Structures are given as C-alpha cells and as structure tokens.
C-alpha cells in the first residue's frame, strides 16, 4: 500500500510491538538509521530481536538501543568491533543472545524473505561451526547447507533521498543492507535527508521502489565514522 510520510520520527515508529524482529540497516555507522533508532528507544518497545550487520558502535544508534536494554537477541555477522563495548558487556554478562551468520548468508536470507523463496542451498559455511546442525545436500559435487529466510516485523533503514511515492536512492556504500531489508519486513520505515515530489527521481535510478516502503520521515543525515571499527 501507499507510502505515508510521517511528520516526526516518533510518528514514524509508532506501533512497534514488544518482541518484534527489527531489521536495522547500516554497515557499522554508514547507513545506520540513527534518528529512527532514537525514536524507537523513546517509543519503548522491548524484548526485540535485532538483525543487523554489526551490534553497535560506541554509544550511538544500535549501541544506544542495546544500552537501553530493549534487545533480547542480535542476529549479525560481526558483533565484536573496536568500539562495540555496549554489546560486549551485555554478551559477556549473559544478558543478550547472539546468532552469528556469515555476512552474505545474512543478506541472502533476508533477500529470500523478501523474494518469497522458502529456503536455499548455499556453499558458504559448510564444514564450519556456523553450519553445525544444518541440513546439507551435495549439488554438482559441492556440499551446500540449507538456509532459511529471515523476515522482519519492522525494518528501520536510512536512505539519501526519497520521492513522495517512497522511491529511494542511497549514497555510496551507505546503501549496504537498506535495499535488502526494505524487501524483508512487514513494516518498512525509512529516514531520508530529503523528500522530493514524485517524478523528481529518474525512474532508471531508483534503488528501492516505493512498493517496499511503508513510512518515510525526513531527518538530517548524521554521518559518523570510526576508523577500523569494522
């Protein structure tokens, strides 16, 4: 259904339920939807499962959500970073669950959810601890592991520019998980730095078509960087 434009980030995140699975865009700090996460903290939903590449940097964004005690479980590829002390403390004290997924498998499992694929066979992770207990099958002489979709109740993503139909374009490597997560959640909420009238984004350049975006909100870009945070 049509994309709605929310007046505030609080309005944009209204209604997120306790226990939701929340897909959170960004690779480290690039593309992280800071304002939506701050709004989610104010909104108060807890017992969340967060799916994101990392588990938070410093004490902003995802790290702030973790620090607020709202997250029961993190599904990610790379939780431990030079500045991931919020996650590290929660994990070491047994206050948060962790599921580590190879980065490409994480992306592909969300892509599968968005694309109506019931499951897929991947050669990644075979023979490693991350494939333990998973079903395998040999295809063309190569062992594959069966992977299932990861679907979100909500996705929080950050893009560069939107039109009023919800079409999104991103900026450089801040694109990362946004377009995939936008396909994989029941309710997709995007923060963007600019919302322009329909027709002002060249249809050849749209990365996320508006069909995937439920709610839009304008928020200033907060571009932070941490060297070597990976």
């Amino acid at each position: 259904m049509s994309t709605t434009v929310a007046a505030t980030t609080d309005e944009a995140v209204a209604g997120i339920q306790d226990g939701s699975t929340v897909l959170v865009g960004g690779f480290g700090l690039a593309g992280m939807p800071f304002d939506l996460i701050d709004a989610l903290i104010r909104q108060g939903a807890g017992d969340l499962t967060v799916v994101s590449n990392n588990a938070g940097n410093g004490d902003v964004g995802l790290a702030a959500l973790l620090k607020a005690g709202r997250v029961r479980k993190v599904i990610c590829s790379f939780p431990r970073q030079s500045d991931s002390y919020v996650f590290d403390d929660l994990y070491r004290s047994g206050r948060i669950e962790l599921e580590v997924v190879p980065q490409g498998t994480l992306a592909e499992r969300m892509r599968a959810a968005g694309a109506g694929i019931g499951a897929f066979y991947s050669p990644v992770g075979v023979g490693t601890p991350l494939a333990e207990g998973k079903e395998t099958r040999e295809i063309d002489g190569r062992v594959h592991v069966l992977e299932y979709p990861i679907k979100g109740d909500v996705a929080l993503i950050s893009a560069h520019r939107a039109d009023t139909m919800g079409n999104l374009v991103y900026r450089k490597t801040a694109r990362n998980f946004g377009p995939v997560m936008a396909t994989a959640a029941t309710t997709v909420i995007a923060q963007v730095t600019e919302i322009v009238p329909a027709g002002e984004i060249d249809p050849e350049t749209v990365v996320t078509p508006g069909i995937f975006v439920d709610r839009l909100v304008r928020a200033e870009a907060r571009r932070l960087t941490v060297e070597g945070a990976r």
Partner: protein
Amino acid sequence: MTTALGTSPVLERADRAPLTTDELAARIARDIPAGSYVNLGIGQPTRIAEYLPADAGIVLHTENGMLGMGPAAVGDEIDPDLTNAGKVPVTELPGAAYFHHADSFAMMRGGHLDVCVLGAFQVSFRGDLANWHTGDPDAIPAVGGAMDLAVGARRVLVMMKLFARDGSPKLVPECTYPLTGTSCVHLVFTDHGIFEPGPEGLRVHETYGITVAELERRLGVALVG
C-alpha cells in the same frame, strides 16, 4: 638458488632475510593478473593495494557494496558514507559502481571475483582455512564476510606470518581453530615462503630466509614438489 623438489623448481632464498610485510604485500601484488577483480581482506591484505600497478586495470571490490574502490581517504576526502569493509574511509575511482549487500555477496558467492587475499590464523596442508575465531570460549565470535570470500572467490590467497609469536607454525596438518572454509586456499604467502596446499600435500614455491630442509623440520612435514 633453485632446488628441484619432485617435479617443480623451488626458489630457495635462504641467503636473505624473511620478507617484511611490505615486501610480502609487493610479492602478492606481482601475482595478481592484470585486469583482475580483487577483494583484499581487512588488515594486512589491504596493504597490497599500494603495490598494484596503476595501469594493470585491477579493480578492487569491497563487500559493503562497491567495485572500483580507491585508496584510503585523507582530509577533505573523508566521507562516512564511503568506507571499505574495515570501515575505513576510502575513495572512489572512475568507473566505480555501488550495489547493495545481497548483490555484493551474490557477486562473491557466484564466483565472479578473480582473486581474494585473506589473513589467517591457520591454514592446513590441504587448504582448509581458519581465520575468524580463535576458539577461545571467552572470545565473541564474529565472522563478517570471511566465509563468503573463502568459498566464493575463484582464487583464495592467504597472507600471513608463517609462525605465530610462540614459534608454532600456522601451516598445520589440521587446523585446531574453528574453520572458515574447507579446501579453499589456493596459495599461502608468508614471510618465510610461498606454499600451495592441496589434496596431495603441501608444495613450496619459494622460500625466504630459510632452507627447504629447515622448513620441513619446523613444519613437521615432507614438502612435495
């Protein structure tokens, strides 16, 4: 000096020092064919970029969604929306392209990258790779894109020191650390030599600052030619 070991000639350079990290990076760069699409793993392999000839048409991939990555950004070039997989700000070269994460890893898993170079904790004689987890029960596991790269790139090169700080070899009969991928490493570039793991055993191509005989003693294996 060139020694015949089985059928392959070995370039044995016991008379010089082991390679420095920069020499090793330069050595690996020489082995990357012109026109290749390459992913350089986080950490030391990143340094190889400095030794790739500018006119070789080698294109760098970063798994967070870019082909045509340029050198690290400095000063005003720094743009937090443009980083490499290590989250270090980088630059964009002419002919670059951006794409999302599912496309980036489809590219990798689908065998479209010609070469990747990864660091390693251990590589086994048959090419198993361990580079993501020390197995320490206190360590927080974090894999990133390592498994995808190990399985996806057409040629997987490893760049590492041959011996750990305690002197134990990192080329081993069987990895004791948790695996990243099985039988996936094509060549291992180390400060003391260049090795080719495989089902028939470990070959040595070149040595630096050590003889083949001494390598065999320290690795505890008969190197095959």
